[in-house]
Every structure is written in structure tokens, then in C-alpha cells.
């Protein structure tokens, strides 16, 4: 993709000549500008979504979430001219790429099944105020292990709904499932998480 504007510091006065477009601020407008070849618009898209993508990959225990996030956005950049859709559609498209990258990563790294049973949360639970202790529990990185009690399908649905902030319909399209199946999976997932959390909270 060719650059359509000179590389300048943001605080530098605009050069003389034709008016230099300022990158728009809404994601939809940024996508439109990036499709026209504006690198700064793509950088803004990256800043807007890359943290969430990295978090999604981290929750999935990807081997190198930061590197994979770069790979995801390299693919986004390469295929950007093929994207057609609105802002939610773009988010969904980015996370579709991230999801497939995560699956590839899992296959590569393979052959290590998800850790089961080692939740490691109990050790960090205190004996004071219930809310403070619960918060301390949630603030601990080991709480990420909790999602390992979910089936792969349940985990995909919950992480796409919560971390990626996608709708039921978006998740259904991404996972090639019916919306009803996604709702059933998320219902079972939360029931499962609740069942595993109850004894932890009761022990506080």
C-alpha cells in the first residue's frame, strides 16, 4: 500500500501545499481512510484494537500474544481492501483473523492440551473483607486459569463475547454456529464458572 502523505511528527506544523488530511477518530472512518492508503489511520486502528486483540490471545494462552497480535494486524493490513462492512463488522473481522491465528498457534504449539485443574486461586485468597478478597482474587493473573475449566467451545464464546465484546450474532458467524447454539454455550459456560467460583468465594 502506497503512502498518501509525508511522514511528519504530529506536532509539526502542516507543510505548505494541499491540505493534509487529519486521520478521523471513529473506527469506521479510520477504516475508510486506511483503505485509501493512509498509514496513520491504520496506526490509529492498531492503537484502538491491538490491546484487546492481545488480551484475547493472552486469555487463550497463546504462546506469544504480542507477536501474534502483530501477525493479526499484518493480515488485516494485507486484506484491508477486501473488507466491506461497518464498524462492528470490522471489529468482528479483526477478531475472526485473531481467532484463526490463535487456532493455528494452538496447533503449532500443540500438542500441549490446556491446563486442567491447576487453578491456583485458593492460595491467594485472604481472610478479610469479602469484597476486597474477591477483588484481590480477580486481580490475580492466576484467575485466568479459571477459563480452563470451560470446554473449548464455551471458552471461545465467552472470550469473544466478553473480551472481544462481540454480539451473539457476530460470534455465531465467526464460529459458524447458530445464534441459539452460542446462547446455549454461553449459558452453560457461566453456569460452569459459577459452579467453580462458588466454593472459592464460600471459602473466603
Amino acid at each position, binding site marked *: *500500500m*502506497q*503512502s498518501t*502523505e509525508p*511522514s511528519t*511528527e*504530529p506536532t509539526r506544523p502542516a507543510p505548505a501545499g494541499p491540505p493534509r488530511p487529519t486521520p478521523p477518530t471513529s473506527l469506521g472512518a479510520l477504516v475508510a481512510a486506511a483503505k485509501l492508503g493512509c*498509514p*496513520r489511520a*491504520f*496506526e490509529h486502528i*492498531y*492503537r484502538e*484494537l*491491538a*490491546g*484487546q486483540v*492481545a*488480551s*484475547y490471545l*493472552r*486469555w487463550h494462552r497463546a504462546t506469544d*500474544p*504480542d*507477536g501474534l*497480535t*502483530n501477525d493479526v*494486524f*499484518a493480515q488485516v*493490513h*494485507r486484506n484491508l481492501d477486501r473488507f466491506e462492512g461497518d464498524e462492528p463488522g470490522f471489529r468482528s473481522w479483526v477478531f475472526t483473523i485473531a481467532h484463526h491465528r490463535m487456532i493455528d498457534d494452538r496447533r503449532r504449539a500443540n500438542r500441549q492440551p490446556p491446563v486442567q485443574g491447576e487453578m491456583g486461586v485458593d492460595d491467594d485468597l485472604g481472610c478479610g473483607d469479602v469484597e476486597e478478597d*474477591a*477483588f484481590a482474587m*480477580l*486481580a490475580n493473573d492466576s*484467575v485466568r486459569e*479459571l477459563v480452563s475449566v470451560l470446554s473449548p467451545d464455551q471458552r471461545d464464546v*465467552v*472470550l469473544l*463475547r*466478553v*473480551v*472481544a*465484546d462481540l454480539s*451473539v450474532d457476530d460470534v455465531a458467524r465467526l464460529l459458524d454456529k447458530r445464534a441459539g447454539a452460542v*446462547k*446455549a454455550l*454461553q*449459558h*452453560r459456560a*457461566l*453456569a*460452569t*464458572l*459459577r*459452579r467453580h*467460583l*462458588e466454593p*472459592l*468465594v464460600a471459602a473466603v
Partner: protein
Amino acid sequence: MTFAWVVSSLDLSRHEAEEILAGGILPGRRDLESVLELTAFMRASGEVEPPPPMRADLIGLLGDPPSPS
């Protein structure tokens, strides 16, 4: 499907599950607070995680170095 799953899911409707995942609140359901806190933590983790540094190959793809944040 285990008996334990049936028991716990009976107390959690599909509507409540959707509310929890959409970031809603469920007044009067203290029994669901732990799940609400967990999903809130998950959501927040995505919102606060900074974008990882762009690597050289991605910067090269853009054809223009990224401007400082």
C-alpha cells in the same frame, strides 16, 4: 451433562447469562456476583491492555513509520 451442572444452570436463566456477558447488572442476585466480577475482570483486561509495540515487519508494511503515541 452432570447433575451439578443441571442444578447450577437452573438458577441462571439464559436471559441472565446474556445480561452478564453484555456487562449488565443483576440487582438482587448476590449469588451471581462472583460470575459478574469475573466477567467484569475479563472485560476490563481487554480494555486496559496496551497495544503491543509494532514490530518491524508490520511497520514496514505500512510504508511509513508509526507516529509516536
